[in-house]
């Protein structure tokens, strides 16, 4: 094992994950998920977030369909979709996505279709952005492991 390479990668990982927290992409719940990962389940976090992203995609499509015709918006259905999205984003620590959902819910309540469409677009953007960021993070993890190192524990407080 090249300890210098490992140390560099670990440093990179640490800086990157800290930046994700600092920029609000992730909140404490993500670090809670990381606690649940161990040598026996090294892909736990990756798999959970993957399910989350699938959820996002599915719900966004459904909500988009509900919002499509201006004269016939099923706000109840949209609200139900937002509720689910808010719940799962909260459970994985996807803070930005969750925050958009909060505004999105408001738009549903007042039946603001334009507002809903904007939120929908934003939620789509945010989840895809997070997906890319986390993919980079997981790649770093893989590199560390392949170089023979261990993934650093990161205290975000």
């Amino acid at each position, binding site marked *: 094992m090249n300890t210098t390479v490992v140390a560099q990668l670990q440093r990179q990982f640490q800086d990157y994950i800290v930046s994700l927290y600092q920029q609000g992409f992730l909140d404490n*719940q993500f670090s*809670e*998920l990381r*606690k*649940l990962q161990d*040598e*026996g*389940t090294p*892909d*736990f976090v990756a*798999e*959970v977030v993957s*399910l*989350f992203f699938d*959820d996002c995609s599915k719900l966004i499509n459904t909500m988009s369909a509900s919002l499509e015709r201006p004269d016939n918006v099923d706000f109840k259905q949209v609200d*139900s979709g937002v*509720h*689910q999205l*808010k*719940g*799962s984003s*909260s*459970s*994985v*620590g996807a803070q930005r996505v969750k925050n958009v959902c909060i505004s999105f819910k408001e738009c549903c309540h007042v039946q603001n279709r334009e507002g809903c469409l904007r939120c929908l677009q934003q939620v789509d953007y945010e989840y895809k952005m997070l997906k890319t960021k986390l993919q980079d993070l997981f790649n770093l993890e893989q590199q560390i492991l392949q170089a023979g190192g261990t993934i650093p524990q990161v205290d975000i407080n």
Partner: protein
Amino acid sequence: MARDGGVSCLRMSEMMNVGGIESAPLDLDEVHVLAVDDSLVDRIVIERLLRITSCKVTAVDSGWRALEFLGLDNEKASAEFDRLKVDLIITDYCMPGMTGYELLKKIKESSNFREVPVVIMSSENVLTRIDRCLEEGAQDFLLKPVKLADVKRLRNHLTKDVKLSNGNKRKLPDDSDSVNSSLPPPSPPLTISPESSPPLTISTESSDSSPQLSPVEMFSTSPLSTPIDDDDVLTTSPESSPEDSPIRRQKMRSPGLD
């Protein structure tokens, strides 16, 4: 099996390669938790949280499936009793169809399961909601997102009470291959009848803290384990549960749950 449907524990095993977990040494204080949540992500997370705290978990996606699992969905169910004991039920509040509150009520109305502690989870911190649930007999109310500390707290609470109670094994009348654990407790007799196979509801005197918790029953996590014979059961105490107790869950598997 539909991805979102039914019992997610199998899928999770496939997904997570939990070989390591399944073959881990048997935790003598293992409890069985029934987790109910319509969100797949939340089910996976709660399942992991529970497993990491040494619980066996059955996760279902709706109140109806929970009732089905518990055998409470129809009167006929009591005739085919082969049910796994449940030590804790943890359910989401907001679910389509049947809410967690409605599920709680049904559980508390059932003679077989009213003693099982029920914990409600909700993303919304609504006092009236919390009060309503506690009034209806919920053991605890967890605010989502659920953290490891929350589950550890629940777990410790269960274990403490479990250790204080006598280790009475439950009799499974249909379990011809496995143990018929008919060891009568020294204190209040267990009312186990052939028609019903209630969870171990040792009355309050066996545990001086929470009267509502049922004692722990141990089972092996390995699906390949062989049934224990009667002798083992009669001489076994909860602290030395045989590693190879039958997987009663397997008998429980019905197509409806998939």
